[in-house]
C-alpha cells in the first residue's frame, strides 16, 4: 500500500501488516536507523499508557476460564487433526492469510526480473515454503469459524516438467486465487499463459501472466463465488483476452 518501507511503521505498530509484510518490515528495520529510532520513540510514548488508566476489577472466575481454555486447547493441538478438507472453493475460508499469500504472489511476480536460475528457483521454493508455513500456522491458529485455506498442486501435461500450485484465499468479502508456476516454456512476444476456471465443461478466462526466462510466473485474481468451479487449468495463448482456449492445457487441477 505504501511505496517506501519506512511508511509501514504505523501499521507495524498497530499489527496491520501480513506476516510477510511484517517480516519485510522487520528486515528493513534492522537496516534503517531512522525507523529504529522512530519505533523506539513510539514504543516509549505508548508503552505504559495503560498504567495511567483506571484499573478495573477482573470478573470472578476469569482466571479459571482463561487458563482452562488455554490448557485444554493445547491438548487438542497435539492430536492429529486436519481430517476435514473441503473440496469446493466455496467451503473454504480463513480470512487471516489473504494479504500474506497475495504478497507472496506479488513477490514471485516481481521476482521475475531476477535472471539467475538458481536464485529464482530458490526464491520460488522459499515462497512456496512460506505459503505452506502460513497455511499450517493458519490451521494451527484460529479455531471455530476459520477453516483452513486450500492449496492444490497443479498436474502437468505429459512431456513437460511444468509445476505449480493454486491457492485459494478468502479475502474479507471476496475470494481470490493465487496461481504460481515454474518450469514453463518461454513465451514468444505477445503470448501469455492464461488461467481458466472451469465449471462443468465450460472454461472461463481468469488471470493471465507471463514468465521470466527461467519459466517462473504467477498471478492472483478474484474469483466469482456464485459459480461452483470444478477445475483450474493453464494454457498458452497466442494473445491476451481469449474467451475460449486455443492452446493445449499445460497445467491443471481439480477443485
Amino acid at each position, binding site marked *: *500500500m505504501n511505496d517506501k518501507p519506512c511508511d509501514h511503521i*504505523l501499521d507495524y505498530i498497530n499489527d496491520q501488516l501480513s506476516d510477510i509484510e511484517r517480516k519485510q518490515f522487520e528486515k528493513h528495520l534492522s537496516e534503517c536507523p531512522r525507523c529504529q529510532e522512530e519505533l523506539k520513540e513510539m514504543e516509549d510514548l505508548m508503552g505504559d*499508557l495503560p498504567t495511567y*488508566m483506571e484499573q*478495573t476489577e*477482573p470478573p470472578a472466575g476469569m482466571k479459571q476460564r482463561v*487458563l482452562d481454555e*488455554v490448557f485444554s486447547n*493445547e491438548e487438542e493441538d497435539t492430536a492429529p487433526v486436519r481430517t476435514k478438507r473441503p473440496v469446493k472453493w466455496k467451503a473454504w475460508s480463513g480470512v487471516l492469510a489473504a494479504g500474506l499469500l497475495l504478497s507472496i504472489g506479488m513477490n514471485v511476480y516481481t521476482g521475475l526480473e531476477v535472471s539467475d536460475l538458481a536464485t529464482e528457483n530458490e526464491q520460488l521454493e522459499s515462497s512456496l515454503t512460506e505459503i505452506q508455513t502460513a497455511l499450517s500456522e493458519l490451521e494451527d491458529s484460529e479455531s471455530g469459524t476459520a477453516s483452513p485455506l486450500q492449496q492444490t498442486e497443479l498436474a502437468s501435461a505429459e512431456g513437460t516438467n511444468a509445476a505449480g500450485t493454486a491457492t485459494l484465499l478468502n479475502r*474479507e468479502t471476496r475470494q481470490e486465487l493465487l496461481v504460481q508456476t515454474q518450469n514453463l516454456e518461454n513465451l514468444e512476444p505477445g503470448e501469455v499463459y492464461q488461467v481458466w476456471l472451469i465449471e462443468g465443461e465450460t472454461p472461463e478466462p481468469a488471470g493471465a501472466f507471463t514468465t521470466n526466462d527461467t519459466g517462473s510466473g504467477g498471478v492472483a485474481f478474484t474469483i466469482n463465488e456464485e459459480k461452483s468451479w470444478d477445475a483450474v487449468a493453464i494454457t498458452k495463448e497466442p494473445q491476451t483476452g481469449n474467451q475460449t482456449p486455443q492452446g493445449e492445457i499445460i497445467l491443471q487441477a481439480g477443485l
Partner: protein
Amino acid sequence: MAQPTDLDLYERIRQKDKEALEVLYDRYEKLLYSFAYRMMKDSQAAEEVMQDVFMKLWRGKGAGQYVSGRGKFSSWLLTITRNASIDLIRKKKVQEVEWDQRDSVHEDLPGVEQEIEDKEERNQLRRAVHTLPDEQQRMICLFYFQGMSQREIAEKCDIPLGTVKGRVRLALKKLREHLEKEGGIVYER
C-alpha cells in the same frame, strides 16, 4: 526466596510449565484486563482478549514470542494485549460496517470521551487527553484506541497519507507531556 522475574517465568512457559503461566497470569491479570476493558468497553470482550493473549503466550509462536532486547517484558505484554484488542475490535466491526461508514467526524470522538468519561474523576488519562486539541484527541482515538491503519486514518480524517505518522506522533508526544507533568502511577514489578 526471590520472586521469579518475568523473564524466568517466560522461559519456563516456553518449556510448557503450566504453573509459570499461572504465576504470570496472577501478576498481570489486573493490568491487562483493565487495559483490555478500556479498549473493548465490554467485560466479555475484554475476557476474550485475555483469552487470546494467554493463548498466544502459551503457544509462543509468531506474535506470542517475546524478543528480548526490545523493550520491557511488561510493555511487550501490553502490546500484545493491545493488538489482540484491536484484532477483536476489527472483527466485531465487520458486523457494523454500515454504521461505521456513516460515522461523521464527531461520531467517533464520543468513543474516547465516553470511554474516558464513564470513569471516575481521578483518571489521569482522561484528563490528559482532554487537554489536547480536538485533532490530537482524534489521532489518539483512531490510532491508539481503535488501532486503525495509516490508510484508514487518512481516509477518516481526510488528510494526506504521508502526514498521518507525524500527526499521530505529535499527539502521543503531547499526551505524554501532559501525563508526565501530572506524574503517573508507574506500574513496577
